[in-house]
């Protein structure tokens, strides 16, 4: 049988032009554009072939009121129970506030049958985390199905950025997802350079990439504490949270902010290189100790091993990204290019795709990131702050600590006409339910944490 190669779906979103709606679909090897009539716009679904197109299409429907045909899931995505029937991303929608509509119940996707019951979790959770809803269909302890419903933190960022200048937009873009702030800023900066025709200075680029790796180290360290904590091993959290705090304090020392807000700019000042090396050496020693210690705790591994498995085949089918993908043996990393390799990047992989793989992968990536940081250390430098930007479409890809981040900006008359960002979480969330199939509900927090997806980034 001839095997048809499946492309990887990166994003699918709509843009409103003066006389039509344009749906842009980005694959790893091509870009497709479909123009839809403004009267009664209808789009053929690609979700039967690309499962993760589902959320993209449901979002297009909510945002623009474009009808989707041939999809098995037509529920609203971004608009919740009391959201009025509006299409806020249409250009003629300019209301600044919104009146709640009557309550229309949302239909969860559940399994029915004798003895099967549902467990609803969220949107407000027990711990200190972002809001989201998880609807479990249970057969006793065993999870039969999980329906995820998000977009509680939907802030209308795409619309808010319209008609602002590219330079002004930065403050909001860096606040889309706090843990990935530097990654978002890098995507923004890349687009600024593309649109102004200014060349990326090598030293500046190295500094920006250094910050990005530091962000990754912080996020991974945080997870190294929280994942075992969700398996009931609190000592790991106490230890790893010290390391992530140390690194956060260090990030502030370097760039002035604990999350790196405002740190990606047109200039890099002189910084203390030895200080970075010293810091990394101490940190590396501590991480090695941590690794050495935790591999010997059997009770942790008996919870980690074989829990929340996503096999490679499914990982491919869903086009998952970042840590989740690499833990399942899928080699996908935006950093897999010459520039990074020159500075010591080695793509890290695991094979099994369970919680243990994701945990081990994070440790490996921390080591590689620390090596990259050392090699990114360089002299001060700057590029001229651009003032003029050419109209057009721009795209950028950055590997955030979660995975491949994609940002699209269309400039018209010197201001943003359409902004769209596809956080890696947007894809990975859709694959999360696959990891639950063989597990019990008590494993859910552990599995969820091992993926550490962003709610805010995917909600926009």
């Amino acid at each position: 049988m001839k095997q048809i190669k499946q492309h990887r779906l990166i994003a699918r979103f709509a843009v409103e032009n003066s006389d039509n709606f344009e749906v842009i679909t980005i694959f790893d090897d091509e870009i497709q554009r479909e123009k839809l009539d403004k009267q009664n716009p209808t789009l053929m679904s690609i979700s039967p072939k690309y499962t993760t197109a589902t959320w993209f299409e449901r979002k297009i429907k909510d945002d623009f009121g474009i009808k989707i045909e041939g999809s098995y899931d037509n529920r609203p995505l971004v608009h919740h129970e009391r959201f009025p029937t509006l299409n806020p991303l249409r250009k003629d929608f300019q209301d600044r506030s919104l009146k709640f509509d009557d309550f229309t119940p949302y239909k969860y996707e559940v399994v029915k049958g004798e003895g099967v019951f549902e467990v609803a979790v969220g949107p407000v959770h027990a711990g200190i985390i972002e809001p989201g809803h998880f609807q479990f269909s249970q057969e006793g302890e065993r999870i039969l199905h999980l329906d995820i419903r998000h977009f509680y933190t939907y802030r209308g960022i795409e619309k808010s950025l319209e008609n602002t200048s590219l330079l002004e937009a930065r403050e909001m873009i860096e606040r889309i997802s706090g843990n990935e702030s530097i990654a978002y800023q890098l995507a923004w900066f890349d687009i600024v350079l593309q649109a102004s025709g200014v060349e990326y200075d090598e030293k500046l680029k190295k500094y920006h990439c250094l910050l990005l790796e530091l962000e990754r180290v912080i996020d991974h360290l945080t997870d190294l504490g929280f994942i075992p904590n969700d398996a009931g091993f609190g000592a790991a959290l106490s230890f790893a949270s010290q390391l992530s705090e140390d690194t956060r304090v260090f990030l502030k020392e370097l760039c002035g902010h604990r999350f790196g807000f405002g740190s990606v700019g047109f200039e890099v000042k002189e910084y203390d290189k030895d200080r970075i090396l010293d810091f990394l050496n101490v940190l590396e020693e501590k991480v090695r100790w941590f690794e050495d210690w935790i591999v010997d705790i059997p009770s942790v591994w008996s919870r980690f091993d074989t829990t929340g498995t996503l096999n490679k085949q499914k990982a491919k089918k869903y086009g998952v990204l970042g840590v989740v993908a690499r833990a399942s043996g899928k080699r996908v990393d935006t950093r897999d290019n010459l520039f990074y390799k020159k500075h010591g990047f080695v793509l890290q992989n695991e094979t099994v795709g369970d919680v243990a793989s994701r945990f081990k992968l994070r440790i490996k990536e921390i080591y590689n990131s620390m090596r990259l940081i050392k090699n990114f250390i360089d002299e001060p430098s700057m590029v001229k702050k651009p003032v003029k930007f050419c109209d057009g479409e721009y795209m950028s890809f950055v590997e955030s600590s979660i995975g491949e981040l994609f940002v699209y900006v269309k400039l018209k008359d010197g201001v943003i006409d359409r902004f769209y960002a596809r956080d890696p979480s947007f894809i990975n969330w859709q694959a999360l339910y696959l990891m639950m199939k063989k597990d019990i509900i008590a494993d859910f927090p552990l599995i969820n944490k091992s993926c550490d997806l962003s709610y805010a980034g995917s909600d926009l």
Partner: protein
Amino acid sequence: MIKFWQRRVENSIVTRHLEFDKDLEDIKKELKSKIAKKFAGSLAIRMVSSGSCNACEAECNALSNPYYDLQRLGIHFVASPRHADVMLLSGVVSVNMYHHVLEVYHQMPQPAYIITLGDCPLLEGVFKENFAIKGADSLKLPISHHIRGCPPEPKEIIRGLLDFLEDFM
């Protein structure tokens, strides 16, 4: 586990020598005595994230790390509004969270206090009212205290909690 205890002895108690922040110690002492007086030694906080970027939550999580170790002062983040004295509200109060925030508040036993965290809830930062953002004022609930910052650093949150205890009671 031997390794762990060795390390534990080497490290001793990290909160004791906070090189990077001296005055935190004083704030903490004061805070502990205030909580002892006003909340019988235990202040229960329910964190509600209502449309934030997650940095404010990350800073709240940092409060439990061994450097700040808020639990030692009698401050607990609790899992249910029914156990809480204070709702710590972060985020812009999105349209999709609006009714859930109200619900949390109404489940809290009275007297219940609201502390807003970060620039988001009062729309002082980059996010302003729009079709998806309501802001905490729209809830029409009494807000007892506000902690500024984007995000407020752990020390500022601790300071803010102390100010709340001072002004409010």
